[in-house]
């Protein structure tokens, strides 16, 4: 019972992907220089326990040239929840931001979301394919999960 009521509560508080992106843009606009921005990301990277060890397996790994990323998704009712991790802390900070935006959303919304807010908060370079840190593939993977869960839902309906 307790579980479902907390789920109920979260649903009420759920803001859209758009709203969460705007929130993050606003947060980042308060930083005066790159150093504060990166310190914040490092903080995010350090503080979030992102993935259950049992999901930190070869199957869920995305090998970038530079850093590794693990990503896993589960459905909770009609929302998709992501967990992820990386061996590099700045990569992990960016993952934390992406999870904040995409976790607890409807798969359909994740499928259609864009990630241009990353440009606006000055982290664009980390999403460049040539950076080879696994993030580009990670976003792709997050969307793949969303697509898969979405079609599962459609089939059920």
């Amino acid at each position: 019972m307790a579980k479902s009521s907390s789920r109920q509560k979260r649903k009420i508080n759920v803001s859209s992907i758009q709203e969460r992106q705007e929130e993050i843009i606003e947060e980042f606009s308060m930083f005066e220089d790159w150093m504060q921005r990166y310190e914040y990301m490092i903080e995010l990277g350090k503080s979030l326990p992102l993935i259950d060890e049992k999901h930190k397996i070869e199957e869920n790994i995305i090998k970038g040239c530079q850093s590794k990323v693990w990503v896993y998704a589960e459905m909770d009712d009609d929302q998709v929840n992501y967990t992820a991790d990386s061996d590099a802390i700045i990569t992990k900070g960016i993952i934390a931001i992406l999870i904040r935006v995409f976790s607890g959303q409807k798969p359909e919304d994740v499928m259609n979301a864009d990630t241009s807010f990353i440009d606006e908060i000055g982290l664009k370079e980390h999403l460049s394919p040539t950076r080879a840190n696994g993030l580009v593939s990670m976003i792709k993977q997050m969307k793949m999960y969303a697509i898969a869960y979405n079609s599962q839902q459609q089939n059920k309906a």
Partner: protein
Amino acid sequence: MTNTSEQILDIKKIRKDFPILSREINGKPLVYFDNAATSQTPTQVIDCIVDYYENKNANIHRGVHSLSQIATDAYEGAREKVRAHFNAEFAHEIILTAGTTHSINLVANGYASILKPEDEILVSAMEHHSNIVPWQMLCQKTGSKLKVIPMSHKGELEMDTYKELLNENTKLVFVNHVSNALGTINPVKEIIDLAHGVDARVLIDGAQSAPHIKADVQALDVDYYTVSAHKICGPTGVGMLYGKEDLLNMLPPYQGGGEMISEVTFDKTTYAGLPHKFEAGTPNISGGIAFGAALDYMNAIGFDAIAAYEMELLKYATSEIEKIEGVEIYGTTPDRKTAVLSFNIEGLHPYDIGTLLDKMGIAVRTGHHCAQPIMEFYKIPGTVRASFSFYNSKEEIDSFITALKKAKSMLL
């Protein structure tokens, strides 16, 4: 660093030759320590490329008109400069290629029709992927065996094992003169002599040695030697394959096309002689000429002075970085090493360090440096690699060390 190093080279003057060194990155003066990936280009070389297009541009080896002759002379003049620099016996032993990767593939492709399944190929454990993958592809075609010369924790090849690996089936040995990930200078003369003892041929990948060491291919008695111009102040996409005349003649052509033929009918084509047999199509003419200009530039400074100065930079950087707690350096062969500092800081990921250094205007390479087997050997995801060139200064090393400390304090 003492004053003596400043006397080896006139760094202030040299730096003025490199326009890019005065630009800013992320609002900070650029400190370029990624020289092992590619070197910067002096005005003398840039001017040479501009001059080619302004005054000499024509296709080579084919026109009776004067401009074509001028371009051909400049291109062949560059080949001669390359020959003289590496002391090859003949200019036609110098194949102008697109760089080391191209050169290696050219040789590997040639051996596909020569090797037999019982033959063995040796490569070292510290090779660039460019000097691993083509041989794997070759072995797939021929069924030959690829064996690895192991390395020690210090980053040296295990010569005793190498001797044991050599046998009458060994046909080819591939080793880099200098490792790009560690900076180790390998004992190539000994490697070549031992290989010749069992009648094997040796290809030395000189991509990383060429910026620091003037190799004499005859003195080394090396069979094939490869270089990329972009690592020695020249343009990208140009390089050389040196091969002994008979060993080049023995290889079939790599690509077919214009320029590499002597006669073509639909029944039969006779190939041109060396070097044209391996130079199908219109080459990178301006690049080849600029390759020659780059060698002129570096020779005017002098390779002994360059090596001595870079060694001082390496020693200074090494002693400064060792003061930072938790630093581990990979490639600890101080007397047999070029100016490459490959390291990690305990508990930190190279990607994070590289990202923060970049924010502070410092360009280093992070990752596996196209040498994943080395990273596998040390069981690390990669390293941070700072590689120095003769145009770098002690002040830049100070900025780098300060930035590194800052990055460490942000990350820990």
